[in-house]
């Protein structure tokens, strides 16, 4: 009995000395060492195109004739849980908007915004949408407030483009700073 216990302990000791338990775990880690990498090489080589429901940076829509869809009803600013949207209506019958009532000011404070998408749900004319732009990092507080003029410019990703893919991208130098320019022609699924 005594000898058996001793032998058993010796076996355990040998196992501990040669690290058999660690080898089991390390075999997995080493296996990953030689397998294909799943790292996304963002931003200089690859970029993630979000799914279509993505709630990113806001934009304002125009109709087919180029008139602003916003009728300045202020529902978006009422629906907003953080009061980050300011709308000031004015009258303009020159055909700028689809109605005589248009927005004089439409601005959103992106640092207050929760990106919940309630403004999009509240809009009765589909004027305000949350787009798929997500690179909103900046160094000054002034550029976190986006005004109507900037938001009316169409975003790079149109609404009908299917998302959930990786595309090739490269860094380009623009007057506003370095930007990531995606190449939408070829895309691939994310490897899991």
């Amino acid at each position, binding site marked *: 009995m005594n000898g058996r216990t001793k032998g058993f302990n010796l076996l355990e000791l040998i196992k*501990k000395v040669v690290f058999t*338990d*660690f080898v*089991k*775990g390390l075999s*997995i*880690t080493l296996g990953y060492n030689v397998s294909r990498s*799943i790292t996304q090489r963002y931003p200089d080589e690859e970029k993630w195109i*979000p*799914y279509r*429901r*993505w*709630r990113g940076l806001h934009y304002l829509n125009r109709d087919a004739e180029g008139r602003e869809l916003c009728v300045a009803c202020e*529902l978006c600013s*009422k*629906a907003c*849980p953080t009061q980050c949207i300011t709308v000031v209506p004015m009258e303009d019958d020159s055909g700028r908007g689809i109605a005589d009532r248009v927005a004089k000011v439409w601005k959103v404070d992106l640092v207050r915004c*929760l*990106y*919940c*998408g*309630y403004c999009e*749900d*509240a809009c*009765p*004319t*589909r004027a305000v949408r*949350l787009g798929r732009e997500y690179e909103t990092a900046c160094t000054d507080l002034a550029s976190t407030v986006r005004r109507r003029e900037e938001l009316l410019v169409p975003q790079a990703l149109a609404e009908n483009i299917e998302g*959930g893919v990786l595309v090739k991208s490269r860094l380009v130098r623009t007057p506003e700073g370095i930007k990531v320019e995606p190449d939408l022609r070829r895309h691939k699924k*994310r490897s*899991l």
Partner: protein
Amino acid sequence: MNERDDIIATQGITIHMGPQHPSTHGVLHLVLDLQGEKIVRAEPDIGYLHRGTEKIAENLLYHQFVPYTDRLDYMCAMSNNLAYVQAVEKLLGIEITERAKHIRVIAAELSRIAGHLMAIGAWALDLGAMSILLYAVREREIVLDIFEMLCGARMTLSYLRVGGVRYDFTDGCKEACEKMLEILPGRISEYERILLGNRVWVDRNRGVGVISAEEAINLGLSGPALRASGVKWDIRKDEPYLIYDRFDFDVPVGTNGDCFDRYVIRIEEIKQSMRIIRQALRDLPEGPFNVDMPELVPPPKPDVYNNMENLIHHFKYVSHGFKVPKGEVYSSIEAPKGELGVYIVSDGSEKPYRLKLRVPSFHNLQTVRHMSKGMYLADVVAIISSLDPVFGECDK
């Protein structure tokens, strides 16, 4: 506090662990009284992330508060959404549709998987097994991709609404869930092989932070940590909400109540969540995903654009919200970290008169004092990680 009386006691010192310590899961501040390297007293000092969530709720319409609940336990936002909307629905006395119930179950279980993966990953990282964090986050990414497809956000989801859900559960989401169910079991057995094979990791958890069942109940511990102490208490089984009573799943229970048991319970719960998702996907019925009550859920967008009546409903909903009958209600769910309860007092208006959140991280954290008494300083890290507190939730 000495094991042997012949060793002279050193002078006790007090050290502060956190709030900037990398292994305190955010902003936990622990005041530790030490005798040598043993803990005499561990006192959590919380409140660094206090944002007054409960007070904010009093100034918002009922449906506007959902995005704030995302910011409570940000590792599994869907559970918080569920707890809140369920409380409001209980107060309103409405029954949601079958499809919405199934979608909610799938969403809640997905967020449980995401939460537990992060818990295990961060825990292993704190104890020095870094590769597990990288693997767990990789698998969490699969779940977050499903969330992104489903509701357009990865962490702050705001997916559920009073009366149903905001977007439909598409076939694409169903396929993604099935793909996840295929991939995940193999990956989880990998974690088990790495962690159970890691002698250091096992020894730092086994027998550490033991809490008895009786003490756990007295201190209000809930969730995986309570079940590890041998108490079979899971709100999904004992007070079924949604349609959990229809699904076949087990509640894993531990025996020793130490950190290692809490790890085993979490791994087992991920597996059980996958079982629930598989059954819910199989049973997912067709039909509407919102209740047919225009005052709670505004009509679908195409109808709003074309129909005057619907437009009026829409304006009314957005600008005034909906009135909730007078009364008070407490509703709780089994969140990944424990019992998440919402208590609402309504005065019959569109805003809650008072909203109280019973958050599991807060109640679980008070057991740190009992668990770490007489333990070594290094064990405190394992104890905190095994409770998995999230400070967005704890400090509210």
